[in-house]
């Protein structure tokens, strides 16, 4: 049993955050905030010409769960194809972290939203309309149901 309210995986990602920092030549950056508690997460993506996320990093202002969710999200994004990145749900992040306390689930939601925001930025920079992300997300949801 974990020694506190967080799982061992959350504690590991909190104390040893993966991929913390910025990517200078990022081609997708998303910043989202959580109005309920003021957390802010900034997600950086470097997508290569084959549409694969080569690198992903984060900067986060927030609690332990927010930092761990950010760290885990970057790990899960690396090596993924852009179109698959949107399939990353907050529940998948929670599961990968070995669970979060109910009051902290919003931190994983923030991470999912950061991915969307970063991809909108990416597609905009590719000369496409950002709404493509909303459409893709809607498709994914429909498939899931």
């Amino acid at each position, binding site marked *: 049993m974990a020694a506190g309210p967080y799982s061992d995986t959350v504690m590991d990602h909190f104390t040893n955050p993966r991929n913390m920092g910025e990517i200078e030549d990022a081609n997708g950056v998303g910043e989202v905030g959580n109005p309920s508690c003021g957390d802010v997460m900034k997600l950086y993506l470097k997508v290569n010409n084959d549409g694969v996320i080569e690198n992903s990093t984060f900067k986060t202002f927030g609690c332990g769960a*927010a930092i761990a969710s950010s760290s885990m999200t970057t790990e899960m994004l690396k090596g993924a194809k852009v179109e698959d990145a949107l399939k990353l749900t907050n529940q998948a992040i929670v599961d990968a972290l070995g669970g979060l*306390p109910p*009051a902290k689930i919003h931190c994983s939601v923030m991470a999912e939203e950061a991915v969307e925001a970063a991809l909108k930025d990416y597609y905009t920079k590719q000369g496409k309309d950002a709404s493509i992300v909303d459409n893709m997300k809607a498709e994914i949801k429909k498939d899931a149901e």
Partner: protein
Amino acid sequence: MEPIYLDNIAGTKPDKRVVDEVIPYLTEKYGNPAAHFYPLGRQSYNAISNARKQVADLICAKNPENIIFTSNGTESNNIAVKGVMALSSKKHIIISEIEHYSIQNPVLKMLNDGYTFTKLKVDKNGRISPESVASAIKEDTALVAIAHANPEIGVIQDIESIGKICKDKGVHFHVDAVASCGYIDIDVERFNVSTLSIAAQNFYGIRGAAALYIAPNVKLKPLFDGGFQELGIRSGSENVPAIIGLGKACEIAKNEMGQYVPEMKRLRDKLIKGLTDQYDFLHITGDIENRLPYHVSFWVEYIEGESLLMWYAQKNVYCASGSACSSNILAEDEEDLQASHVLTAVGVPTDICAGSITMSLSKYNTEEDIDYVLKVSPEIIDKLCAMSPAFDPSKIKK
């Protein structure tokens, strides 16, 4: 390494002498103090009578019969607030915006029953002006409840002036002295208090015992009805071992405060100076002058309180946070995560949810403890600043 315990506001390590005094009441001296007709019971009765005297001595109550024992500060506060209002024909209550939940919540609940209240504003250092109390008192005011010192930001109130105002206006004055007892002189006569709460766990007693001073002529309606223990105000079998511990803790405080308090103040000031010298974006909360001798509380721009707290714990420094994000982490949903009402009252911005860290020292903390905290603080703060999207690296002051 041994953890450095700086969460004494949540309960101190019991004094060894208290524990030694308590143990026989857990083993051989187990009689019920209400059983007067055999020595085992009488022994317990005499022991809690002695504890009552020890409590009275510490808070300068002339008559030990004016002390009743309860199980914690929340219970003492509830008995006072509800007990006074239930017997008063007046319906108005005055509290401050930084009162503990055990004062604020009973009062808020009463609003459904036709009571009204005034929540006094504090200044940016958390102080309540006695004049604001005077002008808030009206014909219908039955009760003023103000804590002697605030556990979250350490500020001490001018209880003596407020007490005088309440006495002059004939209003019941309740003081929650849980955070101050054992560290600041308390004199119920000089402060003109009507009721006053203290709790053993905050000054080297053991958990499970607290007391309520009730001035002569004050009438309270009991919360429980039962066998008339504790003058009938708090029926229910007394927690004898914990009460013996509370008495012993009071005796030790009375004799030794003069020695340990100045040293705690010195270490407190060293910690405050060390932290504020390191970063100009680290802000102390609460009044610097009128401050509990053991209390250091601060917030850091760009950094959220819970992550600071967790890092200190990783480094074996145990402290507390008033951050919204950790205040109620076991809550069922995020609606229950609220920024501390104390921090918002003294102007800590809620929009960035920067929780305050409270480091509360005990008489056992050493110079080495403080040096260690000052050594690890920049490691933690630099790390979290580097992670913060709002932070500008050129602002790090070394």
